[in-house]
């Protein structure tokens, strides 16, 4: 099976290039994921660099651009891919080496979304109550694994990664706005005011298209915009 993989090591290479790899058919097992193939290629060429950890789609380490589409290597079946498989780093972020990108801008925007519960009441000695229906509001939001597949598929984030929070961070913004225990609605909405932080979203919906956890950041952004409108009336 043939692969074409983006290579760049600033310690050695003047500029990036695509390298061809071939994985012998004998090594390919039914049901194999792309990450399994990359690990086999790396066993042969240890200089090939990428992040990986859990191998089951929960840690969010191995986001990459696979045949032009962002996804997690560990949950992308080899059989589903056109050959040769072209693999590049997540687009729009600075490349550190090979498939490893510098995620700092992405994490900065996550932190900018105030991704933590704010409730300044005295803590009760037991749990705060929440009905199952209130808790259901968090489904589809809290499961985000911060893989950055969505934000790095978003043209608005490519253009303004320093000003637009991007789909992943905005999904978390809504996760806390939607939480019946959180008290900082005003503070959170104020934090999202202005032409860029929230409103750069033009509902292109690439984020929804690529999310490996089937989450819907565009819908979350829509809900925040509704709250903004309601507040201004």
């Amino acid at each position, binding site marked *: 099976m043939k692969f074409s993989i983006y290579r760049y090591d600033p310690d050695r290479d003047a500029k990036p290039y695509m390298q061809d790899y071939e994985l012998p058919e004998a090594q390919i097992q039914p*049901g194999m994921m792309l990450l399994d193939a990359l690990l086999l290629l790396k066993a042969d060429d240890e200089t090939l660099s990428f992040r990986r950890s*859990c191998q089951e789609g929960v*840690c969010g380490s191995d986001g990459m651009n696979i045949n032009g589409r962002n996804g997690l290597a560990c949950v992308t079946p080899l059989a589903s891919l056109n050959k040769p498989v072209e693999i590049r780093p997540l687009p729009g972020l600075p490349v550190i080496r090979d498939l490893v990108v510098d995620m700092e801008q992405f994490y900065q925007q996550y932190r900018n979304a105030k991704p*933590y519960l704010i409730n300044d009441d005295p803590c009760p000695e037991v749990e705060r109550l929440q009905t199952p229906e*209130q808790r259901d509001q968090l489904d589809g939001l809290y499961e985000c694994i911060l893989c950055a597949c969505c934000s790095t598929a978003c043209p608005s984030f490519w253009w303004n990664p320093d000003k637009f929070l991007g789909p992943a961070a905005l999904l978390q913004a809504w996760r806390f706005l939607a939480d019946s225990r959180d008290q900082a609605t005003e503070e959170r909405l104020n934090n999202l005011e202005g032409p860029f932080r929230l409103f750069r979203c033009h509902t292109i919906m690439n984020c929804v298209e690529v999310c490996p956890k089937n989450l819907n950041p565009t819908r979350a952004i829509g809900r925040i915009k509704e709250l903004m409108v309601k507040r201004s009336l």
Partner: protein
Amino acid sequence: MTMEKRSFDTLIVGAGGGGLRAALQLSQADARVAVVSKVFPTRSHTVAAQGGVNAALANVSPDNWHWHMFDTVKGSDYLGDQDAIEYMCRAAPRAVYELEHFGVPFSRLDSGKIYQRAFGGQSRNFGGEQAVRTCAAADRTGHAILHSLYQQNIRARTHFFDEYFAVDLVQNQQGYFLGAVAMDIASGEPILIEAKTTILATGGVGQLFRTNTNALVNTGDGMAMALRAGIPLQDMEFFQFHPTGIAGKGMLITEGARGEGGYLLNGDGERFMERYAPNARDLASRDVVSRAIATEVREGRGVGPNGDHVLLKLDHLGSDIVKKRLPGIRDMVMTFLHIDPAETPIPVYPTAHYTMGGIPTNRHGQVVVPVQQGAEEPVPGLYAVGECACVSVHGANRLGGNSLLDILVFGRAAANHVIRHLKEQRYHQPLPEDASEPAMQRLARWNREGKGESIAGLRIALAKTMEEHCGVFRNQDVLREGQEKVLALRERLAEAYIDDHSQVFNTARIEAMELENLVDTALATVSSALAREESRGAHSRIDFPERDDQHWLKHSLFSLEDLKMDYKPVRIKPLTVESFPPKKRTY
């Protein structure tokens, strides 16, 4: 060579649940705390914990901490230290309520309280009917907890060194621990992080085995650092095989699947756990269920063309329960097996899962070592929490739902002890000139040029050796051969080289150092298993099938120097209640 040096009150190595819980407590107390992690914090393996965290909240059925304590002592096959177990079980409800206050999105009951489900080895009234004690956020409890703890640390402005690999601990002549040398993975630059106290929270070492539920990063880095610093590892022979990994692949299917009413079937379609554990059946302790599955397969009652697994049946629960309570494993099974567990049973087999042993600590998280035949004493400046530590609350077999509890309770306890310590110790100890020399040599060793075996090949050879020689069932010959093979692999690794000498994000160098850590922890595991001539909890010796309290009711201590085995007594006396004396263990 000059090296960047940073200085903090406390250094935490590892950013899973244990490290982050400790960090939060310290940051909230205005201590200057640095967290070093080789992966971005939310990539830590706590994220993969599924089923939940045990606490006697009694939200669903009557419960109290004392029953939880009994179950944990019995689950440990009486090897757990009862003072630490009492402490943990008493602290559990508060630890869970704190998480809820931190924002963890627990599933909820109609009453609005935290959802709890049944899990293995849990009983009411000291061995009575099934208790319902495991607090859950669907089947993504670890993810929910890890993200919430990281989020609260953002709020508390904890200082993170993300993607820094800890190379070795730093100590002075008097044995006082003063921090660690780490390497910035992105730049390859070493950095000395000086601290008045260091907390190891580096997790377990599931990568010892070929088929495992663990992340690739679980390479026992902290345990191996402790070994190299002359600290023994405790009870390493006790490695938990989770009954339900996806057969042949290893991904974890939570015990919560059986807690929600799923059960196991053999090749004859028989609900075989009824024979092994007439009362608890599929919710017996993990060691019991894993042995039962392995026995069914060995005796020819497995499922599939090779008869090499059994089935976990969930289809009778109904699609709504599976989707609502087990959405994560449903996704995973659909992704990796292309079947819907709400319709088709899942092929499962026991899979390496959890390291019960680790760095010996007391219930304050202080690392403790025996001092010249005398009682054990704390090692100044060094703490360990979570899976890399051995408190010991899990003894010879951990109960499901007690690992998340362990990291929360002892992460917090260690931090509180550090905070008290910092009040007394205002200044850093002087740092010897050559303190970072061993770590620098370890780094430099992988800069050598030459030709040798590949790291990837050696890592596979190690994992196969451990699987074949240190699995669910063990005996002397198999273990002895395993120990020889690990020692040979250790020598081969000393002659190995890497080709990649780039300074930038050099994963080959990281994997080489991880393999050094794996080999040392493998040696601890197989050596301790060879020495223990009884069967207890997860350690099953075919040649010594009975538990032997007269000779073996004691903790193992393995030291790297001369592969020495030592032993220390189990702490049978709890803090305030009566001790639970060893009894025959049935479920």
